[in-house]
């Protein structure tokens, strides 16, 4: 079964005064994806988002959300897309509920639905009790949650979150991410999340794209990319030996389940499909090698990130 394509860009390009910020970007995001949009500062993530929303015109190329052209039909795109900008702000001297009601009215919701939606949205993010409080009294974390409530008002099909967790404490981040993942699942909402906090992205995203200098360096399912970064296997075992011989490497290669073996200084990096530490230890001892240390790790997004940045 092929899922519906929600976001599609074709050769999307943006130049600012002769510098290319986004360079022929081809993104494809499917329904229900939680897409982690990664990249260093200034890679062009926010510019891409602004073009997706029709807030900025691309120099060339097209962007479509749900089949609507972002540049030509921005209103239709904005009706189904919720956007939380990086430095999200509210009217500080107005109550939280009033801020959300304003969004609801801007979306043309009938008056009887406005209050209902506002209450619902505040409830989902756990801010019902402070609905009457002025936003100026809110903490950073509360404002971020209010921003999520703000996009839920219009029940979007796509949510674009630009650094939704910046400035929140670690516990708040975890709660926030779980909340986003839960809402996305419940409402079948496609989520695009920009971040440079790799751990967070790994936590909830199923698909990632890494942008560097306006170009998509890598894009795909997190699982798959993780394996590639670890040399094809699911796990990586690091072995430290006093002496490494090529015969030893050959012996290890022959163990069933080992995908690849790489040498890096006095370390052997072994990529494998399952935990093969006992087998590897036996082979090393059998070959009269002196084992110093053996560590196992599953892939981390950092590996993917680092791998592709080295390549880029």
């Amino acid at each position, binding site marked *: 079964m092929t899922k519906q394509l929600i976001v599609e860009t074709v050769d999307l390009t943006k130049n*600012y005064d002769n510098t290319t*910020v986004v360079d022929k970007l081809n993104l494809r995001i499917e329904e229900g994806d939680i897409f982690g949009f990664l990249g260093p500062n200034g890679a*062009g*993530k*926010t*510019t891409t988002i*602004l073009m997706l*929303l029709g*807030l*900025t*015109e691309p120099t060339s190329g097209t962007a479509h959300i749900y089949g609507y052209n972002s540049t030509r039909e921005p*209103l*239709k795109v*904005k*009706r189904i*897309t*919720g*956007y*939380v*900008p*990086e*430095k*999200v*702000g*509210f*009217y*500080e*001297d107005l109550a939280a509920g009033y801020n959300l009601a*304003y*969004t609801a*009215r*801007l*979306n*043309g919701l009938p008056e009887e639905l406005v209050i209902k939606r506002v209450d619902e949205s505040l409830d989902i993010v756990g801010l019902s009790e402070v609905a009457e409080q002025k936003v100026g009294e809110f903490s950073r974390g509360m404002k971020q949650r209010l*921003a999520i409530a*703000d996009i839920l008002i*219009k029940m979007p099909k796509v949510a674009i979150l630009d650094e939704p967790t910046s400035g929140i404490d670690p516990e708040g981040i975890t709660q926030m991410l779980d909340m986003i993942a839960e809402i996305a699942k419940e409402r079948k909402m496609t989520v695009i999340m920009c971040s440079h906090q790799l751990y967070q992205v790994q936590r909830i995203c199923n698909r990632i794209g890494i942008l560097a200098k306006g170009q998509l360096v890598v894009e795909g399912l997190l699982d798959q990319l993780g394996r590639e970064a670890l040399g094809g296997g699911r796990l990586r075992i690091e072995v430290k030996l006093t002496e490494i011989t090529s015969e030893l490497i050959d012996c290890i290669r022959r163990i069933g389940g080992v995908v690849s073996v790489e040498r890096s200084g006095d370390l052997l990096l072994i990529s494998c499909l399952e935990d093969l530490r006992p087998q590897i230890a036996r082979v090393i001892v059998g070959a009269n090698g002196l084992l110093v240390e053996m560590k196992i790790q599953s892939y981390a997004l950092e590996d993917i990130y680092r791998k592709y940045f080295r390549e880029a």
Partner: protein
Amino acid sequence: MQGLMTVFYKELADHFTSWRGIILFLMVLLVSVFAVLGPTGAIDNIREQLATPVQYGAGRFAFLYLFSTSGEGMYPFIWFIARILVPIVGIVLGLDAINSEKSSGTMSRLLSQPIYRDAVINGKFLAGVVTIAIMLTTTILLVSAIGLTVLGVAPSSEEVARLLLFWGISILYGAFWLGLAMLFSVYFQRVATSALTSMSIWIFFSFFMSMAAGLAANVLAPMSQTPTAPELLKNYGIQITASRISPIMLFGEAATVLLAPGARTAGEMLQLLHASGARWMPGPLSLGQSLLTIWPHLATIGGLTAALFAISYVKFMREEIRAT
């Protein structure tokens, strides 16, 4: 349309519930009452005039003189409206209209809603104009009520018509200052910069323009020790023309013609003619003639307002939202 109305209602509610709006409103009402009821205010002056009749047809337009005259050492209501109240209200309502939304991060959220971008600037401008209109209506009605109860003089139909016209051009004048302030709020990213710029333009026109005009007149038409009438006239003519660069002067003249039908344009001019020995006593102008006199003034203020708003509109619409 729905987006425009939503922005409009929200901004209007903001103006009337925020401290800023309440303070402005109080200021307008207090100054107006002071101008009319205060010592040597309009009421005192009219009582005096009514006691010694036949001076510039004072009896006929006693009601209007509530707004346009004052006693010694005091300024009339329209002076406060032209110089201080309307400019301040217009500027304060518009000075952070656009840039505060940018700096507080609400602009990108606002623009990601399904509304046309011009709904934001149109709604804000409209809300400002309506706020100014409501303030002016209230204060004109208040002054009228004071006049009715204290003086016991009812307005004639011509006086009502003149007041309505005055009300209309005051709103237009308010829209000019609002447009000026909004223009700077589009151009400058920082609220402090835009506020200072519009304030300094107001201060220049309000307090330094007459000085500058006088200076220009003395350079272009210097007067001898004992100036002759033609010399005086030429000097004065240049001074008035130069000071008409200022919208405050334009509005002040228009308001004077409407509310003090005895005057042609500037009161000083008449006194000067009188002092220089001209045997000519001005009679009150008819409403139609008054309108004809101030038509160029109105067209200029209207044109300036439209131009200011158009520039802000274009700049705001073309502005690119960039990643920061």
